[in-house]
């Protein structure tokens, strides 16, 4: 559980020192005051990336040289630790309790964060890159080896593509990247396939829980290479000449997609906005279920961030949503105005105003007053 958040020059926060002691936390404020930025900072601590941008320069306060995020969190043992991220032009520095740590997995394994965001629907309706990013982020939390393999594959791919730009490139040089790619790709593809099946199962179960009918939902993992390391190796070798003509690697993990199918219909082409929105929500609920099942009762590390997405849900869906995310150790919500929901009776409430956050004594008091 997060106990303290310190920000410097992060988005619109010049300095923030925020003590947190509740499981459920509400951040109330008008748009543009910094509610989402706070969730982004929490997400960054656990994933070392933003849920909004890949450009680090966007995260620092305009005019500053870099940003700092410090988080004090308590694990199951009751031991409090400080996780700190310093980001500037020279790169990033991660430290845990003041000790500099070179590996991002040291940080990532201490938090398991699921963020519910207004543009989640894009995962269902948008381009395949958004779906791969969704899958990659989740598998990176649950399996550090996944992140390493994916990184190896993508680096080797980038280098192989650089070599392929020359139409007379040395075949041996093109081939030099293939053993690395084959090994990493076979592993990543296995994980993606397994996750697609798990996701379909979890989503199906959740949908059946809402509507009490068989869901007819499935997820199909689409990859152009089936099989293990050997198969990838052969395919890379077989395509080498063609790839040289094309000037890039024309197949592989970087083109994978995940089809979300409801009643035999591909959602991104034939689903209604309502269906796509529901599936995007349930998809992330499924992730919470998977994390909760893995945590085996130790839910401290699971953090759920909800950025203003509950407003449009019907009552039954909202209750199911609250039940599922209730499995997390800690919840952070943003709202433009205080919700009347009984669910938030014991929540800690904060007012967010132009990069400053002040605790409001309790939601009870606000509700009664």
């Amino acid at each position, binding site marked *: 559980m997060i106990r303290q958040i310190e920000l410097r020059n992060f988005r619109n926060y010049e300095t923030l020192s925020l003590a947190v002691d509740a499981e459920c936390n509400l951040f109330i404020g008008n748009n543009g005051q910094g509610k989402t930025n706070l969730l982004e900072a929490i997400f960054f601590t656990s994933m070392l990336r933003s849920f909004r941008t890949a450009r680090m320069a966007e995260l620092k306060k305009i005019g500053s040289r870099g940003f700092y995020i410090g988080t004090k969190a308590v694990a199951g043992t009751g031991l409090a630790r400080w996780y700190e991220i310093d980001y500037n032009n020279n790169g990033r520095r991660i430290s845990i309790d003041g000790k500099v740590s*070179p*590996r991002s997995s040291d940080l990532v394994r201490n938090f398991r964060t699921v963020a519910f965001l207004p543009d989640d629907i894009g995962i269902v309706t948008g381009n395949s890159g958004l779906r791969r990013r969704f899958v990659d982020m989740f598998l990176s939390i649950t399996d550090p080896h996944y992140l390493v393999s994916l990184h*190896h594959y993508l*680096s*080797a791919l*980038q*280098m192989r593509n*650089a*070599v392929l730009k020359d139409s007379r490139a*040395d075949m*041996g*040089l093109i*081939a*030099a*990247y*293939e*053993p*690395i790619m084959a090994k990493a790709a076979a592993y990543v593809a296995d994980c993606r396939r397994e996750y697609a099946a798990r996701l379909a199962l979890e989503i199906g179960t959740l949908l059946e829980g809402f509507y009490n009918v068989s869901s007819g939902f499935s997820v199909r993992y689409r990859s152009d290479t089936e099989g293990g390391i050997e198969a990838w190796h052969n395919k890379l070798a077989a395509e080498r000449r063609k790839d040289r003509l094309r000037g890039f690697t024309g197949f592989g993990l970087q083109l994978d997609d995940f089809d979300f199918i409801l009643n035999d219909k591909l959602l991104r082409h034939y689903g209604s906005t309502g269906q796509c929105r529901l599936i995007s929500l349930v998809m992330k609920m499924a992730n919470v279920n998977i994390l909760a099942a893995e945590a085996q009762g130790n839910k401290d590390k699971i953090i759920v961030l909800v950025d203003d997405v509950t407003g449009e849900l019907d009552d039954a869906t909202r209750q199911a949503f609250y039940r599922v995310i209730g499995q997390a150790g800690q919840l952070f919500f943003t709202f433009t105005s205080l919700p009347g929901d009984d669910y938030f009776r014991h929540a800690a409430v904060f007012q967010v105003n132009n990069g400053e956050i002040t605790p409001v004594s309790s939601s009870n008091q606000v509700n009664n007053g």
Partner: protein
Amino acid sequence: MNGAEYPEALEELIELLKSLPGIGRRSAERLALALLQWPPEKLAVFGDLMRELPVRITFCPECGNLAADGGLCPICRAPSRDRSVICVVEQATQIINIEKSGLYHGLYHVLGGKLAPLEGKNPADLNLETLPRRIDAGPVGELVLALSSDVEGRATAAYIAGMLAGKGLRITRLASGLPAGSDISYADPETLAAAFSGRIVL
């Protein structure tokens, strides 16, 4: 001259020192001012050494290791070395580290880097041309690829292995006892010795 600036000659020296790895403006200033305190004789010796550096320190024409006055390096010259094994390294400084482990008695081949197509570093930029010739000329039976464990190092190893396929060589790499993310430049002698004794055939 502006009062907030150093005299031009000193400023030039600071700029030169700044181009060294790990030296920022502040350190360069400190070094330059320290040099200023040296007696003229000492500075003259220092200057002579600098001037003669490219002539007196050369690269071994055989293996690419650091050598003196255009000759072979001490390892290539030593009759006691095992000429049936060549260990390929990225940098000459890594040889010193491997020698400290005391377990390797063969010859070396210094690449001068690793393949990095994104930075425009291609096979032609590495000391690769002489390697097949050395193998054809001598009684070489094993090639040890002691390259870094990152993607670039692994691809460089795969490229060399492919290039020399068919020469009937035993091509090996170091056992992966080295700490993750590090390379042989930073490994201690015991770890390196273990990595050498547990070589893996590619």
